[in-house]
């Protein structure tokens, strides 16, 4: 008998990786959109925009991989989650349309640049808020009957989901600010050090609030976090959050260029790890596990080599693209 891989578990990890890659990469460019009102129009905004213009659509492709991958690997969950969270998902898509076109439009139409800057800001903020709400609503659980969503179309709207939404807005803004610390100099960089400090505090408070609330949503979450002996493992997460936060603030004070961004990413990794601890092995809590929702093995087997071969290649040329546009960016563009 050949060695039996637990393919659904492997694909749960792959989808989680795609979501992580998305959050890491699109997080900072959405964050710059969120921060737009705090960045004065003119050179500073232009530099901020130029620092992400060559990479944003590669970043958003991870979102397509997350969606397409979920459809392919967990078709049942894909349909349940997206139809249950209809309103926030549609809002996210429309918001992404607005902010995505703003990249080109603001240069093509200087007369309406202010309008497209607002579109970029509002689009980025709404998309982030919607992503956070989606996540919060998923954690709360989704009402299911006969392989389909059976709740109302405002079930997603609760204080908890709004809290997660606002937290994610703070989180992406932090990624955006620390990205700009890395990519800019002068007045914009100074401004981002100040923003980074305030956002860092906001993010840590938000993480604490969400973490404190989550175990009370469902008994299952409580047990996953606090049952003995696994608490020895789960307790590492908040501990590492404390360490990463400390390093973050120290590096900010010492005006390091790269460390604040890396620490902000670290906080996101830990947040996602925490999410994984709460959810696993459920993909649509409370009832649908990854094995219930997984596509037949023959579908997963067909995709696995593609993922294993292509993802490293994608990461390699994405890395190359970032390397080409490395260093500080000016407001003058890349031409």
């Amino acid at each position, binding site marked *: 008998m050949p060695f039996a891989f637990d393919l659904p578990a492997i694909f749960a990890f792959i989808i989680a990786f795609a979501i992580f890659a998305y959050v890491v990469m699109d997080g900072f460019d959405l964050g710059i959109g969120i921060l737009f009102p705090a960045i004065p129009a003119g050179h500073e905004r232009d530099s901020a925009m130029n620092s992400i213009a060559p990479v944003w659509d590669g970043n958003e492709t991870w979102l*397509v991989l997350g969606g397409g991958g979920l459809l392919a690997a967990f078709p049942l969950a894909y349909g349940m989650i997206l139809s249950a969270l209809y309103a926030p998902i549609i809002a996210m898509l429309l918001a992404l349309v607005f902010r995505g076109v703003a990249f080109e439009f603001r240069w093509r139409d200087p007369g309406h640049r202010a309008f497209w800057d607002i579109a970029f800001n509002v689009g980025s903020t709404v998309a982030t808020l919607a992503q956070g709400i989606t996540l919060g609503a998923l954690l709360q659980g989704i009402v299911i009957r006969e392989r389909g969503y059976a709740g109302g179309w405002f079930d997603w709207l609760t204080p908890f989901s709004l809290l997660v939404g606002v937290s994610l807005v703070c989180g992406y803004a932090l990624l955006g600010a620390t990205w700009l610390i890395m990519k800019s100099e002068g007045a914009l960089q100074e401004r981002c050090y100040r923003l980074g400090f305030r956002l860092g505090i906001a993010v840590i408070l938000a993480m604490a609030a969400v973490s404190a609330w989550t175990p009370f949503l469902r008994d299952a979450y409580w047990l996953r976090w606090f049952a003995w002996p696994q608490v020895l493992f789960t307790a590492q997460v908040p501990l590492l959050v404390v360490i990463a936060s400390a390093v973050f603030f120290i590096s900010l004070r010492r005006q390091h260029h790269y460390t604040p961004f890396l620490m902000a990413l670290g906080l996101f990794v830990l947040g996602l790890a925490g999410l994984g601890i709460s959810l696993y092995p459920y993909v649509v809590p409370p009832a649908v596990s990854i094995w219930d929702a997984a596509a037949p093995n023959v579908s997963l087997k067909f995709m696995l080599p593609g993922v294993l071969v292509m993802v490293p290649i994608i990461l390699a040329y994405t890395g190359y693209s970032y390397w080409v546009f490395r260093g500080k960016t000016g407001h003058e563009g*890349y031409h």
Partner: protein
Amino acid sequence: MFEAFDAVLLARLQFAFTVSFHFIFPSFSIGLASYLAVLEGLWLWTGRQIYLDLFKYWLKIFALAFGMGVVSGIVMAYQFGTNWAAFSDKAGPVIGPLMAYEVLTAFFLEAGFLGVMLFGMNRVGRTLHYVATLAVAIGTFISAFWILSANSWMQTPAGFAVNAGGQFVPVDWLAVIFNPSFPYRLVHTVFGAYLTTALVVGAVGAWHLLRTKSSEGGANDGARVMFSMAMGMITVVAPLQILAGDQQGLNTLEHQPVKVMAMEGHFESYNSGAPLILFGWPDQATGVTRYAVEIPKASSLILKHSLDAPLQGLDSVDRKEWPPVAIVFWAFRVMVGMGTLMLALAAFSLLARVTRRLYDWPLLHRFALVMGPAGFVAVIAGWVTTEVGRQPYTVHGLLRTVDSASRLDAPAVAASLLAFIVVYFIVFGAGVIYILRLMSQPPHRGEMGPAHGQPMRAAGITPSPAVAESLAAGGKEA
């Protein structure tokens, strides 16, 4: 029951609207990416500045079109789940992996190299920049390959079994990917994309030829080159496309005869030679095509290559299997009409080329100008023909559209449909205006690329040798 139908109808309208809008951009950018690769290749090969100028001119337009394709495409990746949850559950194991492969092998390739293609020429040097351009062009192809495979599988499903949960389970992946209608659809669609781009490029060339008649000092050189290239492309591809379309029609007749009955407006069966209904009004309720203008026996000739061959009509199948006949019938005629006009343009331009009047025959230029949007019209009409013709199924013959939808309330779908319509018209309306604005400028010597953040410079300030020098320097660096 009635309410459920309403929500499904709204969901269909929403999908039709978002996919049609989305499809406009890739059908243009597939061809344009290849055109850019050709232009840059010609520049590298011949060293002629004009090819670089044209490359940069069309690159700015490509950047806009591609961006709009990306954002409208993300919507599509999620629409299956929001509005078609039951379809996703059942067909996801088959079409999901095809779409995942599209993302992995195409979308990342395009998006990953687009940044270098748009902004990186001075940073990576000529050779690597050309690699990026080629990667983007090849990416658009790979993308077409996978998504058309998935779409074709919904039309002519193959290589699957059905499991206890009602899901389609792939059994033979090669049979899934290369399902019976896929090769035909791929060729027909890619030709369609090429024609669409060539018609746009030709119209822009024609516009500038009409505006700048004088060729003194190379005033309209750019317009001449692009017009000539576009007309050459149309002359080659338009006849091939008609051939490809005929082949796809025969394939459809074999696998989806009901769709062809609707395309032909044949409600009744003909035992000896079916007429070709040129025009008419198919009346679904009474099952008659009214006011029909017919050519006797011509339909049998086209579809069966024999005048007296019998041809079945919609009366041979249950009414519940009928697609909306009038939409299919008319969409098909719009597509064929556009194709015929393209063939006429091809012939006209060939005549002008042979008689050496390609650049100074205003009638030809006007014709090419009004044909600018014809490719889009044809592509959308063809799409409507094939997709509406598949109704009332999402997976042909196996999964009905009404059984594919999410359990949504009609007001939720109606609200989102309205939001899509408003946002798309604002955003893509603006985008189209910006594209037209770029097109209204003639290509200049020393054309700027999609450089950002600098004041729009007047044409010709950057001397071309300096550009070449900086490029050469960049090349050495890399």
